[in-house]
């Protein structure tokens, strides 16, 4: 029954490759992404311009590399806010319990019932649209409840386990127990949750920027580029294809990674 975990291997390989490409994009791109007339206008994909060029003759592959960098870094920042905030809330309420836990979890249930993009739109309209920091803050806040729920379940299930009780009886302080004894054992649940969170963040950011209320130029993210590409669908379909495929590939490879992590944890396949 036991077989190599293909998902984990494929996910790691693909994600690693993409991460390397995105990192490379921060330092070097084949052409200057914002240079006009790096090639002829509306040139179809070729060896010189792998994804063709747009209406200004800008090299789309270079732009996609740069846009992927923007998208990935926003998603990571969002994830950092959501995961740290959510795990802290989940760990504390899950470990200590009590009425605060009750109230917070009720609130949490109510919040998670609402689609994250809708909540993010409300928050962004309150903060003011069009700014990168606001997008990160809005999405980060919106992702806190789901992480709180996942980590709370994980921490609650460990609360009465023997080794935790022993640690408590030996007089270990709560913070130490949470960080040293419990956190490593919740990783099996938290790591897949992180991959899902990253993907949701990528998709949410791309949607908001596509709508024109997320990130706007000069930090063009993939979502914004796709809305630009839709306008020239007749003249340069490769622009939309290249940009869209970059998003799909990013989410797909991290999705595979998450699937692999889940399987490793469950011991299936």
């Amino acid at each position, binding site marked *: 029954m036991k077989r190599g975990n293909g*998902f984990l291997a494929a996910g790691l390989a693909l994600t690693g490759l993409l991460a390397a490409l995105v990192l490379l994009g921060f330092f070097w791109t084949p052409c200057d992404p914002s240079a006009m007339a790096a090639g002829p206008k509306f040139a179809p994909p070729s060896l010189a311009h792998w994804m063709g060029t747009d209406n200004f003759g800008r090299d789309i592959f270079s732009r996609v590399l740069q846009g992927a960098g923007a998208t990935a870094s926003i998603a990571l920042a969002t994830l950092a806010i959501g995961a740290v905030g959510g795990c802290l809330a989940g760990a504390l309420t899950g470990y200590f319990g009590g009425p605060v836990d009750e109230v917070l979890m009720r609130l949490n249930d109510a919040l998670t019932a609402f689609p994250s993009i809708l909540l993010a*739109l409300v928050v962004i*309209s309150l903060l003011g649209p069009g700014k990168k920091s606001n997008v990160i803050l809005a999405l980060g806040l919106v992702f806190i409840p789901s992480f709180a729920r996942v980590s709370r379940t994980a921490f609650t299930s460990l609360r009465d386990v023997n080794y935790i009780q022993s640690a408590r009886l030996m007089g270990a302080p709560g913070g130490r127990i949470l960080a040293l004894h419990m956190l490593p054992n919740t990783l099996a649940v938290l790591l897949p949750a992180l991959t899902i969170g990253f993907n949701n963040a990528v998709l949410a950011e791309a949607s908001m920027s596509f709508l024109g209320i997320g990130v706007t130029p000069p930090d063009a993210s993939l979502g914004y580029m796709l809305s630009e*590409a839709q306008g020239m669908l007749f003249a340069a379909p490769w622009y939309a294809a290249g940009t869209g495929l970059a998003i799909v590939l990013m989410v797909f490879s991290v999705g595979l990674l998450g699937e692999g992590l889940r399987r490793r944890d469950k011991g299936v396949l």
Partner: protein
Amino acid sequence: MKDLLKRVLALLATMLAVSFLTFAAFSLISGDTATAMLGTSATPERLAALRAELGLDRPLAVRYGKWLLGFFTGDLGVSTSYQQPVRELLAPKVGLTLWLSLMSFVLITAVSIPLGVWSAGRRRFEGARTALNQLGMAVPPFFTGILLSWVFGVGLKWFMPGQFPDAGQDFAGAAVYLFFAAAALSIPRIAMTVRMLRSTVQEELGKDYVRTAISRGNGRRAVLRRHVLKNALPPVVTFLAQTMAEIVAGSIVVEQVFVIPGLGRMLVASIANRDYPVVQAIVVILALWVVLAGTAADLINQRIDPRLRLGGAA
């Protein structure tokens, strides 16, 4: 009956909380509304006069009470950017978004339930199917939307991307148009529902009662249909309600891609214009939709699963 009453009360309480929170949040920044309408060069007197006219100078609770009363009598306030009653502005759009969402919901249910059940009973190519599933979840609706408009709109000319036909004059054209939008919206959700259904059914298949039923000579297929599905259904119903909520949110993006003049497009435009009365009304309408779907799922589950009726647990 008592259950139903309790549900309705809970629904009302949730809606009150949601609408109050939205109202309070938008009130916090609505000092901007007067400035936004008159520009920053307006004199303080004119700003004060406009605030008094809009009722912005009164306490929050009073304004909320007035707004709530207005909401129930169909008065949603006046849009600050269109100078038109919000109700008139939104009335023709609610229907479109509703149709788009329902179409997508039917599509998701009709495709994913058979696919999920079929997939649960099979072991072959499990890895490839899971990978395909991951791919389905990775395709954002706005990208699918662009692809569909390119292939079926620009290429095959089945519809004109960007020109939504008036449903009154060209019903079939509007339906085709909405169908493609709904399809774009549905693909990732279909993948998610299949995945969910598959794991639920497989979990049930591993239980003792299934082995008992099969060892007593029942066919696998009959056991699946008669026993397993019945037990696997409640979580799926709950998941579908969540899906309904996600569809509504997703329609915001898809309406933008297909240029459908529904609530979502209005919401995005109003956020950009800082037209808070409109944003507020749309958010509350969408929230009502989400909460209604959740309540419906709970009620359906209580009907099909007697275990939920006895326990009295929510």
